[in-house]
């Protein structure tokens, strides 16, 4: 089992100065963590960080310092109440390049972690020694299931991975990457190669993102789309042909063909489905980055929820041409909305429209009945590849700069481009204190991992009245009862 801990850049910025102070003494913090488990992998997700004071991290009987039992009990009970695990962090101030758990650390784990597992009710517990740019630890999944920490991933505008020892990238990156390696180094190329990136919606914007990711040389692209190529898509989908339109080829299969032509060593996993469905959304939970390029607000709701529940950086893109019923153009803009802490989420930004969600959740018959004022006349908005290209490049840049460590403060801000006048607007999105997705409010799903309650559909059924063929009879029985 490979164990990783994922923290936000905001959290590490809070913890690091506490752990590494001018006194060069050891200091400690405790994280309350959600978790995500798959076969062969466990990911701990930091939800709360608690900086321990001198009283909570006193000189120890068995080692130099130890977390006071009262502090462990207090925080363990808090973790249990929230269904979370607990991970302690403590500094090894002299460890700069690499760090290792000491013998005292390991003995301390064996003395305490069995009891701690009981306190937190079976959620994972762990202990990590931090160097200034390294981390070594172990995670206890059960009294006899102990796993060494592989790495600590920090997600944010400038992501980083901390390991016990630094990993040097392939010194001789392939010739095909020579020009880009000159910008972000062989280490950056190795980071890209190790990434699994989901692209949700591989139509106009998404196909361009897939193309760029393949050229960059990411390790794996997970392309998700339920749609098939039609004639009217051919002005925008990169790699699609008239033959594809005639045959109704799946968009994900066009993406697969495109990637194999650019770089056969880049793996493409094609998922023919709707990301709103649980079995499809589960593909997102194991990726390193999500690009959302589909039109629906339901997919925005889902990706925003998954990104925050599993601490996965993401970006949503859209090119919008608002047309009036008479065909005249009202406004044209391109939106690039990173989902990177510490920015507020798509919900906080007002980018998930509640009325649109209700329309998309309703059946066709319900939609017609609810549109009794005739506000949604079904006008097809225009769509142009140049607008898609602006958003695709900007989104891929957010991924690239964040992943290879070139991101700076502001990378996570939302961008609105108005191509008619060449304008760019950058927006800081404030996090709402009671947001269900990105806040730390009690009801928030932030960093809860597999314990999160997500807005996912249980079965892959078309959103039409036909889905109620069975339940319709059930509904009549129900009415008869009341």
């Amino acid at each position: 089992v490979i164990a990783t801990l994922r923290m936000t850049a905001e959290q590490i910025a809070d913890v690091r100065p506490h752990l590494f102070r001018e006194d060069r003494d050891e200091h400690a913090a405790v994280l309350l963590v959600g978790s995500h488990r798959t076969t062969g992998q466990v990911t701990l997700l930091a939800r709360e960080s608690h900086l321990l004071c001198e009283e909570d991290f006193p000189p120890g009987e068995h080692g130099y310092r130890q977390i006071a039992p009262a502090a462990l009990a207090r925080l363990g009970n808090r973790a249990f109440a929230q269904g979370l695990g607990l991970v302690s962090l403590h500094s090894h101030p002299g460890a700069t390049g690499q760090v290792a758990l000491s013998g005292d650390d390991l003995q301390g784990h064996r003395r305490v972690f069995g009891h701690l597992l009981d306190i937190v009710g079976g959620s994972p517990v762990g202990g990590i020694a931090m160097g200034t740019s390294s981390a070594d630890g172990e995670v206890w999944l059960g009294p006899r299931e102990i796993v060494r920490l592989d790495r600590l991933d920090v997600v944010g505008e400038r992501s980083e991975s901390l390991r016990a020892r630094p990993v040097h990238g392939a010194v001789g990156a392939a010739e095909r990457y020579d020009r880009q390696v000159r910008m972000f180094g062989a280490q950056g190329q190795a980071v890209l190669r190790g990434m699994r990136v989901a692209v949700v919606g591989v139509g106009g914007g998404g196909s361009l993102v897939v193309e760029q990711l393949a050229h960059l040389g990411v390790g794996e692209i997970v392309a998700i789309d339920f749609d098939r190529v039609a004639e009217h898509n051919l002005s925008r989908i990169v790699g699609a042909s008239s033959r594809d339109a005639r045959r109704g080829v799946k968009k994900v299969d066009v993406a697969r063909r495109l990637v194999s032509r650019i770089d056969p060593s880049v793996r493409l996993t094609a998922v023919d489905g709707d990301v709103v469905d649980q079995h499809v959304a589960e593909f997102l939970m194991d990726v390193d980055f999500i690009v959302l390029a589909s039109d629906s607000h339901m997919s925005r709701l889902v990706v925003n929820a998954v990104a925050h529940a599993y601490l996965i950086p993401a970006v949503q893109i859209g090119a919008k041409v608002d047309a009036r019923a008479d065909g005249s153009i009202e406004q044209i803009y391109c939106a690039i909305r990173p989902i990177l802490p510490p920015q507020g989420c798509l919900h906080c930004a007002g980018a998930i429209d509640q009325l649109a969600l209700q329309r998309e959740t309703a059946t066709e018959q319900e939609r017609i009945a609810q549109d009794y004022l005739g506000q949604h006349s079904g006008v097809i908005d225009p769509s142009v590849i140049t607008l898609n290209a602006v958003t695709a490049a900007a989104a891929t840049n957010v991924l690239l700069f964040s992943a290879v460590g070139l991101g700076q403060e502001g990378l996570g801000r939302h961008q609105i481009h108005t191509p008619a006048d060449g304008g760019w607007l950058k927006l800081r999105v404030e996090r709402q204190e009671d947001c269900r997705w990105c806040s730390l409010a009690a009801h928030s799903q932030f960093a809860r991992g597999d314990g999160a309650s997500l807005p996912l559909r249980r079965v892959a059924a078309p959103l039409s009245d036909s889905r109620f063929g069975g339940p319709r009879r059930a509904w009549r029985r129900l009415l008869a009862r009341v």
Partner: protein
Amino acid sequence: VNTTTIAAEVARALGELQEAFPGRVASEPDGLGGALVSIAAVRLPAGWPVAHSALMFVIPFNFPAIPIYPYYIAAEAAPGGALAGALQRVEWRGQSVLQLSLRHNRWRPGLDTVLGSVLQAMDWLASR
């Protein structure tokens, strides 16, 4: 494709309603993780053709991310004359019903509750 599973949040919301209206709540899975719900014997305004109706609605699979909308009552409950703005006669799930277009304009996911929503709908009906 159908399933009898109901999302945990939907089940929690149903429990809340059953506690508030004991013996009056009936529900069926909608096949997607949500539930079709009916609350019996909801009081209607004085002067309407019938005194009570079932209040019907769907708790969608993505509740509480989105609120309940709309509500329905029996078609025979419709008051005489032209219907007010928020009331429409519609076909729903194979039958004629009266649709109550009551929207939550400031729904706060996870803070606002299904019970609060239902009580608002009942209050709206009672105050006609």
